[in-house]
């Protein structure tokens, strides 16, 4: 093994291990980042409560099992429905619809407020302590090419990527998905062609809520469920969306994975205490070098 003075002893196995677990958390960031881009494309909404949208569903599940005595699978199902209703339908109807005609800024402020409300409510009415969240997968590790890779990481990665693949299939391979794309690209014409534009936008919000639920139940077993989780998650997802290119699902996916991996490697090899600076540094580099994002295209049109 090469002995790099500032990295300590470098082991390929450890590197691979860190890389895979980075991909796993990165794929969860990607789910949240994709939600950002979907809402942006469909209705020019930047949801600054996105982090809290990922924090909340885990507490819906916990409330179901702890207060209502529901079994875990039932609580999960109810939490999914609740997430879609509250964070999708409710969010759209109560906050976005009335504010959208007034431009982007009121929505930004309203979603920041919504984030604070969600965070403080959980702290006040539930608990300020981090809550353990049942692991969805066994905590065994598999030996792959000499590296110990946890089953959980692989399962998280597969589920998150599977969800993204399904979403892509839905958007490209169904009539309704194509109508959603048309709505995002040119709502006026879509409307004239008879596409039910408002419903398509609503679907986007429902999908975002479902993605947030999925991200929540995947990440909470790793980081525990805590009222303040949304702060980091929201920021990282936002950065991932920008890094990848705000107007592209593929970009958000790439951005999420990249941040997950870079973050994990930097924490191990450079400094754990500066780890939260890593996404920000990445953001600054991308904005300087490639402001449209890794895969994004510059908005605006050349004529």
């Amino acid at each position, binding site marked *: 093994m090469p002995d790099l003075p500032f990295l300590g002893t470098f082991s390929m196995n450890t590197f691979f291990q860190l890389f895979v677990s980075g991909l796993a958390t990165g794929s969860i960031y990607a789910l949240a980042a994709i939600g950002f881009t979907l809402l942006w494309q469909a209705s020019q909404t930047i949801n600054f409560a996105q982090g809290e949208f990922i924090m909340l569903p885990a507490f819906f599940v916990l409330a179901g099992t702890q207060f209502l005595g529901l079994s875990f699978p039932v609580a999960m199902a109810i939490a999914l429905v609740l997430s879609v209703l509250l964070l999708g339908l409710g969010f759209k109807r109560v906050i976005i619809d009335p504010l959208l005609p007034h431009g982007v800024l009121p929505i930004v402020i309203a979603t920041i407020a919504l984030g604070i409300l969600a965070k403080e409510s959980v702290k006040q009415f539930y608990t300020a302590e981090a809550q353990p969240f049942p692991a969805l997968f066994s905590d065994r590790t598999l030996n792959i090419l000499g590296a110990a890779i946890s089953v959980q990481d692989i399962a998280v990665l597969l589920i998150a990527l599977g969800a993204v693949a399904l979403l892509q299939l839905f958007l490209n391979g169904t*009539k309704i998905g194509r109508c959603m*794309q048309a709505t995002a*690209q*040119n709502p006026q*014409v879509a409307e*004239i062609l008879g596409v039910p534009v408002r419903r398509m936008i609503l679907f986007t919000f429902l999908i975002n809520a479902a993605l947030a639920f999925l991200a929540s139940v995947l990440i909470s077993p790793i980081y525990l469920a805590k009222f303040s989780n949304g702060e980091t998650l929201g920021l990282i997802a936002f950065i991932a969306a920008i890094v990848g290119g705000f107007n592209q699902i593929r970009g958000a996916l790439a951005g999420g994975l990249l941040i997950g991996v870079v973050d994990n490697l930097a924490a191990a090899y450079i400094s754990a205490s500066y780890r939260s600076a890593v996404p920000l540094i990445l953001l600054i580099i991308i904005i300087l070098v490639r402001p449209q994002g890794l895969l994004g295209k510059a908005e605006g049109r050349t004529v």
Partner: protein
Amino acid sequence: MNPVLSVRNVSKSFGGLRAVDDVSFDVHQAEILGLIGPNGSGKSTLFNCVLGQLPASAGTVLVDGKDVAGKRPCDLNKLGVGRTFQMLQVFPEMTVLDNIILAGQEHKGTMLSRLFGKPDAGLTEEALRMIDFFRLGHQTHEKAGSLSYGQQKLLDAAMAFMAGPKLVMLDEPAGGVNLTMLADLKERLRAFNQERGATFVVIEHNMEFVMSLCTRIIVLANGRIIAEGDPETVRNDPTVIEAYLGG
């Protein structure tokens, strides 16, 4: 037989300004009607009243004998009124083929049929024919946003025709299109008109284009019809010359 489009005593006021003042005309099957007039003559307002984008202050608009008052643009689309846009209006991130399919499909059905029905709604063949007709064949699978301006105009027209409309309203089709492409566009529109008996109403500033494309021309000035007839008659009408030059 009913006229395809019948505009009867339509007026539209904005506050004290009468942008369209008691205008009546009919458009018959297989006609290409040009609607011209100096800037501010009320062409676009009239166009928007017909298309349901502005409610008329008075008068009626009949499509195929049916009153379309209060219909939304998408209802008019279903009734067989297609349109193209002055500013380019395509779905830039979709392929040429997908743009045309989207324009042709009927947006109804159950959630299940929307999820599991063929995403192309069985329209691929017809869409490919339309693409060939408008000579965009070599760009079938390219993103619409990557096409040149003139080609996007052709695509816009192809989209308007895809749903098999009774009437197509063309809003400044020649605007910003280079001369070669313009000849192409004109030739294709005329071919469509002759081969399929399609009916058009064209708003246009480019006189040469209108005169050589249309079978009949209506001239608007200050919201009123000041002249009507075949291109030659209109071209030589002193009131028209005065409206354009005398201002």
